[in-house]
């Protein structure tokens, strides 16, 4: 049995490449749980951050600083009556959220959290990701139709038109990044997600800075298109609550509705992961080539622990700042426990960092590397997650025709131009 485990830990391949079904399964489970937790965390962070943008406090009652609010919400949603409109198409209504959810979660099989920290490394990784994430629109379209109601139908039409249009610009931006991967001695690029990050490592530059400003423009196109692709503000036409009440999920309630939300947030994380992988160096820490001395490795490996330590300190500060009224007693204890938990994690990570440094190529070192990869990847993705919230707090909503105009008349020509220029520049240099 330990051999089972060690067989993978000693390998530099992903479980899928190694044909290691056991570890593949473990990874699937970890990713499923991780994404669910991330969505829950994202829910809380979005509500809190949005509230603070808007001079509110956000959830404060359920748990200290509303930390348990997402769980309360989840419980509420699960216990809610599951309403299926009598005029709805029962089967399709039932299956629609599952389609969206499946598409959103299937994408994670190829997301590389590290050089071997992925379920599988397909040689068509990015193609697979774009393809499967584009299946998510099926769920939306079908949900809108099955509700047999005008607003969901219009929402579904809008979102499908929107996603199909933005996929074009998005795809072209992705292609220009893939063209960059082919700038090596053999002249062949790769579609593999891991291969793309490794190409950035070899060329010693994140693709966002490659052929500046070409990479940057392509990244910008992608960053805009991915907001449209996930139906988020300011492109949240499909669920524009002031126009279409709630768009395609107007008729949904309870658990089914929460599946849509889960799918939406999972899709947000997925597209952010694509952006990070393609342009921001994926799992790589900053300056891996410039600052490559073991001392730098050690310093950067301290970051995960320090981050958790900082979070623990913030939580501790919250404990101290809590009013000294008996009403807050439980909350104070809860927050203190939470801070302690974060502190323990921080401590553990720091211990691993130190241990990983002292004993090279040992299990601890492997762990240390893996934590580092996942940490930097997640950190980059969370920047995008924060941007999603920031956009939502700042901007009004585009109108549908304006959205299409931007998609077809602005983004598409620019991404096409960037692709052509990137190819030419790549050939010349």
């Amino acid at each position, binding site marked *: 049995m330990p*051999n*089972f485990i060690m*067989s993978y830990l000693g390998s530099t391949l992903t479980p899928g*490449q*190694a*044909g*290691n*079904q*056991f570890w593949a399964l473990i990874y699937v489970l970890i990713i499923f749980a991780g994404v669910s937790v991330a969505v829950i965390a994202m829910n809380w962070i979005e509500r809190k951050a949005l509230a603070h943008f808007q001079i509110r406090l956000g959830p404060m009652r359920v748990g200290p600083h509303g930390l348990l609010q997402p769980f309360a919400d989840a419980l509420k949603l699960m216990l809610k009556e599951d309403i299926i409109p009598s005029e709805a*198409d029962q*089967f*399709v209504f039932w*299956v629609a959220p599952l389609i969206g959810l499946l598409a959103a979660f299937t994408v994670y099989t190829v997301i590389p959290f590290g050089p071997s920290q992925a379920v599988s490394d*397909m*040689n*068509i990784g990015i*193609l*697979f990701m*774009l*393809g*499967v994430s*584009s*299946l998510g*629109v*099926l769920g939306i*379209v*079908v949900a*809108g*139709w*099955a509700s047999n109601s005008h607003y969901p*139908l219009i929402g*579904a*039409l809008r979102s*499908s*038109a929107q*996603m*199909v249009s933005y*996929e074009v610009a998005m795809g072209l931006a992705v292609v220009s990044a893939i063209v960059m991967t082919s700038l090596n001695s053999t002249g*062949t690029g790769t*579609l593999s997600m891991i291969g793309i990050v490794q190409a950035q490592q070899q060329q010693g530059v994140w693709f966002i800075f490659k052929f500046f400003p070409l990479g940057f423009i392509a990244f910008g196109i992608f960053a805009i298109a991915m907001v449209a692709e996930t139906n988020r503000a300011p492109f949240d036409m499909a669920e524009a609550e002031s126009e279409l009440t709630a768009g395609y999920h107007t008729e949904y309630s309870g658990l089914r509705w929460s599946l849509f939300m889960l799918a939406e947030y999972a899709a947000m994380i997925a597209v952010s992961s694509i952006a990070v992988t393609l342009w921001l160096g994926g799992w790589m820490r900053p300056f891996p080539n410039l600052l490559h001395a073991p001392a730098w490795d050690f310093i950067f490996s301290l970051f995960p622990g320090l981050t958790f330590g900082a979070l623990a300190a913030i939580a501790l500060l919250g404990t101290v700042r809590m009013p000294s009224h008996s009403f807050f007693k439980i909350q104070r204890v809860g927050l203190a426990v939470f801070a302690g938990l974060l502190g323990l994690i921080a401590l553990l990570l720091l211990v691993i960092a130190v241990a990983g440094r002292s004993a090279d190529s040992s299990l601890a070192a492997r762990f240390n590397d893996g934590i580092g990869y996942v940490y930097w990847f997640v950190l980059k993705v969370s920047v995008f997650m924060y941007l999603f919230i920031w956009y939502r707090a700042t901007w009004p909503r585009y109108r549908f025709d304006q959205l299409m105009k931007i998609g077809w008349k602005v983004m598409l020509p620019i991404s096409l131009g960037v692709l052509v220029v990137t190819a030419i520049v790549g050939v010349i240099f």
Partner: protein
Amino acid sequence: MNSALSAGAPVATPFFFYMLSGLAVIGGILVITRRNAVHSALALIVTLLSVAGLYLMLYAPFVAGVQIIVYAGGIMVLFLFVIMLVNIERASKDRRFNRIWPIGLVAACTLMGLFVSAFVKGRALFPDRGMPLSEGSNTQEIAKALYGEVNRAGQYTFGQYTFAFEIASLLLLVAILGAVIMTKKKI
């Protein structure tokens, strides 16, 4: 145990093959028997995805990816898009098999005959005939070399089969123009 796990060989190949084929066939039957056009479209998506799975099993991930992105993701969304705007109530009351069904039957039979004859007579045409499908990495390597790699697919498309590729795109252009002319009164 350990060796089997690390060999990279597919697991339970026959099971997945029959499952995917079965799904494809059931989906295909549902496509033509459902009264509701949206149900038909969903069944078609199942078929297309099953076929994509079969491609994956044939070590042709690129074809599988393209199958998903183009057919299941792109074309089917447009299908649904159109179907949703058509008056379903009226369409579901129409006769499902219209008067030209004998022609369709003849066409289907001809196609069936073609397949059978190709299977019976043209076995020699398949290069890997007689190779074990499930065991050994040899198949995998050959198949990968032939169809799997993206760069090979690209070389075929823009090398050997450029003309066919361009003809196909011309066909699409004609179809687009036809659709525009049919729907737009004033151009």
